[in-house]
């Protein structure tokens, strides 16, 4: 824990779990408020941290995409509300021609009066969802999702490997579609979707087969001499456990079920799952190369998001209205002291977290481009 924080810290990769906890914390904060100023502040803080601490690698270049998705969510939300607006509020901004609908679709309206209240409500709602999406985008850009999967317990190794492969397939598929679409124009661009789909599928299939061959040749799936009986026992434990857990959970949530029945079933089910994972984990033997350490920087990152949430909750208990600006009557949203400070605290990792190694090397070799000045690529 003798690590220095801030700009003097030795460049290294931050534990992916820390960034995910940080992002999830901010997403929870965002879900607790509809105040557009506060949501905007969260987006700003997230963008700042991503810009300052993302790695110069493919997974670190996707943040712009999430920003655009966020914008799309807001636009869609507001657009839909304008066309299918309910009667809500009294401040009519303009009136669209209304399409009369038969009686049996009561409650749905197309066109008609558009009020400021309904547009604002849609905007607040959309912005909240967009902020949550952007928070997850930030986690993806700050921490390689594949490194996160390495944290899975050994029993889930195969699942993790499958997800890892799927994660690398997605960008390759996009590249392949772009390439084939471009190539199709060389041949008049006719042939319909089939002309794109077929070569792309063929390409994806080829790639998957080569990848599987390469993984096999490099020792993926070597078994440590596990007997078939034990494998079956493990699978049985896992299935029984999951079944028990589901029934128990259902019984707990369903008010009509006898309460004493739910909790024990859930407990026994979960216990079975844990035992199953444990025995399965002993089956596959792997080692990990360079596990990311959890040190001072990780604690600082997690603490920043924790502090933000705490201040938000405190702020909400003092002045609940500050998190949810009133729509009826229309009021200008304001920033309350405590939540604002909280969100700003969550931005501290932008300076506290160590620089990722490749970015640090880049900054060293070209001193004129400081990392803060380089922009987040779309």
């Amino acid at each position, binding site marked *: 824990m003798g690590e220095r924080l801030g700009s003097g810290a030795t460049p290294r990769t931050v534990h992916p779990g820390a960034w995910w906890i940080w992002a999830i914390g901010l997403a929870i904060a965002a879900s607790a408020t509809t105040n557009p100023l506060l949501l905007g502040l969260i987006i700003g803080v997230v963008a700042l941290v991503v810009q300052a601490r993302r790695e110069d690698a493919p997974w670190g270049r996707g943040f712009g995409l999430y920003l655009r998705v966020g914008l799309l969510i807001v636009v869609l939300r507001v657009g839909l509300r304008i066309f299918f607006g309910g009667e809500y509020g009294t401040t009519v901004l303009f009136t669209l021609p209304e399409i009369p609908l038969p009686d049996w679709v009561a409650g749905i309206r197309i066109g008609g009066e558009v009020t400021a209240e309904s547009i604002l409500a849609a905007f607040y709602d959309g912005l909240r969802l967009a902020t949550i999406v952007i928070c997850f985008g930030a986690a993806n850009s700050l921490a390689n999702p594949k490194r996160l999967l390495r944290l899975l317990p050994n029993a889930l190794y195969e699942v993790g490997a499958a997800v890892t492969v799927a994660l690398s397939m997605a960008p390759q598929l996009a590249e392949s579609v772009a390439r*084939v679409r471009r190539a199709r124009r060389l041949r008049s661009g006719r042939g319909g979707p089939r002309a794109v789909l077929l070569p792309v599928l063929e390409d994806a299939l080829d790639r998957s087969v*080569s990848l599987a*061959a390469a*993984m096999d040749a490099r020792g993926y799936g070597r078994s440590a001499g596990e007997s078939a009986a034990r494998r079956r026992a493990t699978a049985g434990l896992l299935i029984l456990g999951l079944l028990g857990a589901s029934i128990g959970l259902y019984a707990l949530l369903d008010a009509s079920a006898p309460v004493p029945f739910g909790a024990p079933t859930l407990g026994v089910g979960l216990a079975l799952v844990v035992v199953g994972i444990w025995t399965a984990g002993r089956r596959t033997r*792997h*080692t990990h190369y360079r596990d990311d350490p959890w040190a001072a920087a990780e604690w600082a990152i997690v603490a920043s998001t924790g502090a933000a949430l705490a201040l938000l909750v405190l702020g909400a208990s003092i002045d609940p209205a500050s998190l949810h600006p009133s729509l009826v009557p229309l009021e200008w949203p304001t920033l309350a002291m405590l939540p604002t400070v909280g969100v700003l605290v969550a931005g501290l990792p932008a300076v506290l977290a160590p620089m990722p190694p490749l970015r640090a090397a880049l900054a060293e070799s070209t001193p004129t481009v400081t990392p803060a000045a380089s922009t987040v690529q779309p």
Partner: protein
Amino acid sequence: MISFDRVSVTYHGAAHPTIRDVTLEIGEGELWLVAGPTGSGKTTLLRTINGLVPHFTGGLLSGTVRVAGRNPRDHPPRELADLVGFVAQDPAHGFVTDTVEEELAYAMEQLAVPPAVMRTRVEETLDLLGIADLRGRPLRDLSGGQQQRVAIGSVLTAGPRILVLDEPTSALDPTAAEEVLAAILRLVHDLGMTVVLAEHRLERAVQYADRLIQLSADGMARSGDPQALLADGDIVPPVVELGRLAGWEPLPLSIRDARGRASDIRDRLVRPLTAERRGDGPIAMAASGVSVRYGSIVAVRDVSVDLREGEVTVLMGRNGSGKSSLLWALRGVGRRSAGRVLVGGVDPASVGDDDARRLVGLVPQAPGDLLYLETVAAECERADLDAGASAGTTRTLLDELQEGIRSDAHPRDLSEGQRLALVLAIQLAAAPAAILLDEPTRGLDYPTKRRFAGILRTLARSGHAVLVATHDVELAASVAERVLVLAAGDLVADGSPEEVLTASPALAPQVAKVIGPGWLTVDQIREAMLSGVKAEAGR
């Protein structure tokens, strides 16, 4: 180390075995080179060594393979990972992780190597392959040669004693290929690694091989001393062809072998007086100030070039020097940030797709991207319709390019050379004034390449302007009438092949290296020797 005893492999549904009765004895620390025409079973032979055939591919394997005492038939490939390192043809397709270091460690994680050992082995491997500076870099950002070396490293870390490589240099430019081969040689010489290597471009690798395996189209194999085997057969590198022509014994395999003996024929060569001159046809395509930028990266910078009718121009340059970007920009489909291209007074980027392809045709690097129908006949009919040509045009063109492609064959089942011919025929059906080809000879064997060179010359004679982007210097030497060289997006050389190709060792064909500047192909030497003989007789 590896022994094959009458090994045959027959894939499911195939009428004939892919490899037949192969018997080999590969000793420890030897470098074996596998050669043979496309489709002769090189990959199959390599895959039997680590058990991918038959465990992964299926098929019937008869005979016995033994690898360091183990029989791959009883062990799936993953159980042999610590014994045989297998590097497939396209390294990028086999990457599992994101960064160089993680990729090197992947095999060791599977073998449950303790973390401390992993760290030291990764360091050793980084040094051994000369990629220490790439350590933390994302794999997708690496060049082809770097990716290939990382792929080799990623199997080496498991500690195998045998390394099997499937065409490790086929996608690489000459310089990157040298680097990869140098790394492989270091493994053979310093670590005593046993290496089995398949390669189309014998000129790159044959000089380093202890033994050569020649597979023929029917799957039979001959193995032995490279010099003895190369004395006949039609898959030989130019330096061997030259040695045969000059009657040198033993046959030279490397430039060094040949160079010492070249003095006796050098004086006998008489340069033909009626050398074909070029550069007098009308201009088919005039490009000026073409630039291509992707964000902050400049792929092509201010290139101006005129292509003439009846001329084959070859565009050369390292991997990533902007060759493809330039071709796509000239065609008008790819990004063009600045500049204009005129074909018959019209810019192909300014008209619709149907009109543009009557001006310029482009055969992309992956020709299969253009094919989507079930049979060759259907593709040809569709091409006639698309191009507005009379029925049967494409089929006739295809027969002119390459005979014997069955109409009911599925385009995916064609060999690389046949598929290339099909796509070329489809593009020619629109009768473009200029035809551009992006890296067409990747994966083609010598006879196919020679035929293809003939096709390019015929195209030019029939009035097309032909531009071929390639890093195959031997192809360039045999077809080019003009050579352009791109370096980091700039056009750095534009001239006759005699001037440009012999100027740098990376671009010089073997004949130029042996005989001297001004000579490019064995055919030229053959003619010059003949006229030399005539001159003697006439005196």
